[in-house]
């Protein structure tokens, strides 16, 4: 348990992806089965333990200490799990409890617990653990580790640990269960690769590369088919022998969030496409609408009715048990067209091809797409098989130009690692309010897009123009007369109630520093609102 607790603590404070990978790989290397597999399951969200309510935790602790002292403590720390882990009275270990519990012990004990004896069993575990382990146990039973590690990153760490391609892990993943003994045995070269026995498995997806400056000159337009690039989320719909699953592009099972779509998966096969909301026969909803359906554990009937999910299909990987991935794109496309024609038309439609006469014509098409939910074009080589990963050549994405706004730097935060002494994360705002009483409203935050040289210049500007400090954050002088104007590029705007401006930028980055531009010439909020209202 100590090793797992330590891992959680380190992961939460390690900002860099590579740092997290090192911590995870070392953990898999140095911790034995089943604990490392259970740690993996806890991180990927595949560990099921019946939950304990925060109120119960509070009762347990105030039975053991003065409630007033607990109150002072909780007020100070602000996190219930952490407070309880720290104030829990230390007990001398005796008899059968003399050993600290392992993660395996903890999970097995908690999984055996019933609703009635759960609290008592939890209390006994906390008695046997030390501070760090108590924190980890409480996080496990209250759900939500919140350590900033995605399932995808955990799989990447597994791939590094076993020196295999992450696509292999993703393909296997849904056939495996915690504590993943056979997976680790294979990754350590002690056993054969586990066989896929589960139904409706995920197949690693094929990704595209952006069109570079001179990529197209060497290519013949006739070798490629073009499609619109829809601004939804990439999904894979798999139905096999009555098992239906909807996967994200990284192989996470997202079926639970889209029961309306899953219900309509009356077919045998594996489809690749874009998940969107609306009714394909009438209108396609915006990404903002789609957001209403993302990251939800349960979906209300109202939600399903207001934002119905559908899939715009662009590839077929398996049809009635036949693996089509080795076929050229043109052949798969024919099979796909026939296949989709048999499906429920309000839930599945075909991503249409976009005929074009040459690269110049296509350039025009991607710059001014015919629908607001289109963010560019896709190019697919007609003779290419369906390959896992991101091979360069067969598939290209060619995006519409980003939106641009001129904003004023308002706050700067110190970065981490290489940038730990630099103010490298910038919050910027645009003008709002009536003429003569304009003020800045923050509209986003960006931390890349500039060179190291520019970073030094902005850092100096921040230090020279600081108004106030709040821990690692500084507010920077920004008014009508003085301020640094940043040209910010972004992909779109989502409606958001969490932001004062009403919208959240997608993929914002600094595209240029406008040292030359006076702050009063930066954009007004109306420029952004126009994007939301489209």
């Amino acid at each position, binding site marked *: 348990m100590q090793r797992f607790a330590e891992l959680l603590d380190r992961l939460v*404070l390690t*900002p860099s992806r590579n740092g997290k990978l090192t911590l995870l790989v070392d953990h898999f290397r140095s911790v034995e089965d089943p604990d490392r597999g259970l740690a993996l399951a806890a991180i990927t969200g595949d560990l099921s333990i019946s939950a304990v309510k925060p109120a119960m935790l509070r009762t347990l602790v105030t039975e053991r200490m*003065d409630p007033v002292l607990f109150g002072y403590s909780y007020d100070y720390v602000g996190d219930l799990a952490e407070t309880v882990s720290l*104030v829990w009275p230390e007990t001398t270990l005796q008899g059968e409890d003399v050993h600290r519990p392992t993660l395996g012990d903890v999970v097995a004990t908690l999984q055996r617990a019933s609703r009635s004896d759960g609290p008592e069993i939890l209390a006994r575990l906390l008695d046997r653990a030390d501070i760090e382990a108590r924190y980890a146990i409480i996080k496990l039973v209250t759900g939500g580790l919140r350590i900033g590690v995605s399932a995808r990153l955990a799989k990447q760490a597994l791939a590094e640990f076993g020196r295999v391609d992450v696509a292999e892990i993703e393909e296997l993943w849904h056939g495996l269960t915690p504590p993943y003994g056979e997976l680790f045995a294979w990754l350590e070269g002690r056993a054969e690769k586990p066989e896929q026995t589960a139904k409706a498995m995920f197949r690693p997806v094929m990704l595209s590369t952006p069109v570079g400056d001179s990529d197209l000159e060497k290519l013949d337009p006739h070798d490629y088919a073009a499609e619109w690039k829809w601004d939804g989320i990439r999904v894979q719909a798999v139905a096999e022998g009555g098992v239906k699953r909807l996967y994200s592009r990284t192989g996470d099972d997202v079926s639970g969030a889209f029961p309306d779509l899953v219900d309509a998966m009356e077919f045998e096969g594996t489809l690749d496409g874009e998940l969107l909301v609306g009714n394909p026969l009438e209108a396609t909803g915006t990404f903002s609408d789609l957001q209403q359906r993302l990251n939800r554990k349960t979906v209300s009937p109202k939600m399903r009715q207001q934002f119905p999910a559908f899939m715009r299909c662009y590839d077929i990987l398996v049809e009635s048990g036949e693996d089509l991935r080795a076929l050229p794109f043109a052949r798969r496309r024919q099979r796909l067209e026939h296949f989709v024609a048999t499906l429920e038309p309000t839930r599945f439609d075909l991503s249409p091809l976009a005929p074009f006469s040459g690269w110049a014509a296509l350039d025009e098409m991607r710059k001014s797409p015919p629908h607001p939910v289109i963010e560019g074009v896709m190019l697919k080589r007609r003779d290419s098989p369906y390959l896992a990963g991101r091979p360069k050549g067969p598939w290209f994405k060619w995006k519409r130009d980003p939106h641009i706004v001129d904003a004023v730097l308002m706050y700067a935060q110190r970065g981490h*690692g*290489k940038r*730990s002494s630099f103010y490298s994360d910038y919050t910027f705002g645009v003008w709002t309010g009536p003429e003569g009483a304009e003020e800045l409203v923050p509209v986003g935050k960006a931390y890349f897009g500039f060179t190291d040289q520019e970073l030094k210049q902005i850092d100096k500007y921040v230090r020279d123009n600081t108004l106030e400090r709040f821990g690692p954050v500084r507010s920077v002088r920004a008014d009508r007369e003085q301020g640094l104007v940043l040209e910010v590029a972004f992909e779109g705007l989502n409606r958001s109630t969490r932001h004062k401006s009403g919208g959240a930028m997608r993929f914002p980055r600094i595209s240029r520093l406008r040292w030359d531009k006076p702050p009063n010439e930066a954009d007004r909020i109306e420029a952004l609102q126009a994007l939301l209202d489209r």
Partner: protein
Amino acid sequence: MRARDLLRPRPEGLYCPPGDFHIDPVRPVERALITHGHSDHARSGHASVLATRQTLDIMALRYGADFAGSTQVAEIGNSQTVNGVSVTFHPAGHVLGSAQIAVEHGGTRIVASGDYKRQADATCAAFEPVSCDVFITEATFGLPVFRHPPDTHEIGKLLASVEQFPARAHLVGAYALGKAQRVIRLIRDAGYDKPIYIHGALNKLCDYYESQGIALGELRPATVEGGSKGDFAGAIVVGPPSAFADRWARRFPDPMSCFASGWMRIRQRAKQGGVELPLIISDHGDWDELTRTIGETGASEVWATHGREEALVRWCELQGIAARPLHLVGYEDEGD
């Protein structure tokens, strides 16, 4: 004699009317008794100062030889009389030279403990409980959530990380007096014998600790003259925490920010400060040390100062010990 006639708070600091002296005054006074060399307790400009030899040395290092009109050495454990009031210095285990001051007059003994800790520390004399009627305790970590792990465990975390991330420089933030030398000594005691790099602000005090017989091993200045960034890959660099947020830190390759402080017990504190590797090492007693010490002094009354007094006062009440917060101004209850 009533305790509050023997010692009472004044804006300048804790004052003894019959002895006409202050303990750790925050403004210049005629006669000051000083518990230890941290700058919020030991200020310059007093007419006369009574403190341990080491505290006087440290003050001279920090403020120059003329930091007070006159100085007098307090021998540990030897009582002396100041205007008819008996005062005795006892080790406090906080930093080198730190002392508690027992003040006795008219049959009443009050111990002003200054700052103290109970964990073993190779860089200073260990705290000795002194029986008394009134115990004045600090309350920096006076909440049940503060429980410091053994310092050796924390240093183990640091050395494991140095091994795990050999390309990164580990920047350990530690206050210049006491914490820095203790951290360095702990690293040595854990068997690490490579050079340790230090920020210039640590030079004088590290030299002084060495002169007092506390071996710190090979220390090198953390400068890059004639070298390159790569020189610090896998190195341990110790410096004041403020330096690591500053441009000074840019000379190191992909630095791992570590901070040695009791505050690192609280995750949010580490996170907000951008600390990647928190090391829970403190100069101050944790909750268990504070409560244990109050019991060991046998005091029937406790005055709690700088920090989270309310929880400590509550604890005393539950134990049937009279207690009240002592409001002294000018001390940094955040320092550690």
